[in-house]
């Protein structure tokens, strides 16, 4: 009868949002578990290597940009720029004095001149550092073919 009268039946449109909170909480749990504080945020193009070992947590970071600007962090606070090679030696000596087995991570741009890396390595040797990691990205077969 209603059809005959020409009345259209109303369809209510709604989005089901009850599960939204569950999804959001799952996402939060994911981020909380995977979140780690990055002490050094210097933007560098890392070299690519096949051999890669995991860097220990709380390692000290020394970053070197393409232009040779050096920033250091003991792994607890954000990285700070250093002005001279002597400052790198002082920084590394202080870190080693506090924690003798502390690992040092060198995060250098692949296009930087080796002399900048050499100076940092020399400073770490003078400070009697024991383990050094040269940060890199994973090399793939495509990189080899290029």
């Amino acid at each position, binding site marked *: 009868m209603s059809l005959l009268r020409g009345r259209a039946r109303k369809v209510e449109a709604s989005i089901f949002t009850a599960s939204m*909170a569950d999804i959001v909480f799952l996402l939060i749990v994911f981020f909380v578990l995977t979140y780690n504080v*990055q002490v050094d945020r210097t933007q560098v193009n890392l070299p690519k*290597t096949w051999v890669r070992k995991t*860097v220990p947590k709380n390692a000290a970071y020394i970053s070197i940009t393409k232009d040779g600007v050096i920033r250091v962090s003991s792994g607890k606070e954000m990285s700070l720029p250093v002005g001279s090679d002597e400052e790198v030696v002082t920084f590394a000596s202080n870190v080693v004095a506090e924690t003798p087995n502390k690992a040092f991570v060198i995060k250098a741009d692949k296009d930087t001149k080796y002399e900048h890396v*050499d100076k940092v390595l020399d400073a770490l040797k003078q400070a009697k550092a024991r383990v050094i990691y*040269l940060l*890199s990205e994973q090399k793939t077969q495509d990189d080899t073919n290029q």
Partner: protein
Amino acid sequence: MKLEKRKIESEIFTGSMADISFLLIIYFMVTSVFSATRGLDFALPKQTNTTPEIKQEDSIDVHVMQGGQIKVDGKPMTMDQILPYIASKLKQNPDKPVILRTDPDATYNDMIQVFDLLRQAPDKIGMEIKTISIPTQREIQNVWALFGVQ
């Protein structure tokens, strides 16, 4: 007349929970960075009073020059030729150390590619290079000074 007890309904207001959660998600998304946490490792020798002396003829000298050219024991080589040459030397003496020298004008990438190659020795030639030494310019100059070369 009987007094009616007024019921107090207890409830926690959860209406703003979703808003707080979304704010937290935005915070974590903005501040989290996918960072590289892997790299090539090497251990420096422990400090001892007596410095072990390595004669040049007892070691394999890998020299990375400006432009990425490589000389091994003074002979120019390509990346593919290095490990077979080192394998032939290690067969004579498995403890032979490799000295990786890099010119200051070469790029860091030139050096790390050779270092990566040396670290792949167990997979590629089935032999491990027990000692890879990376001397710094100061150490090289000290050695030259010992021989009286300026």
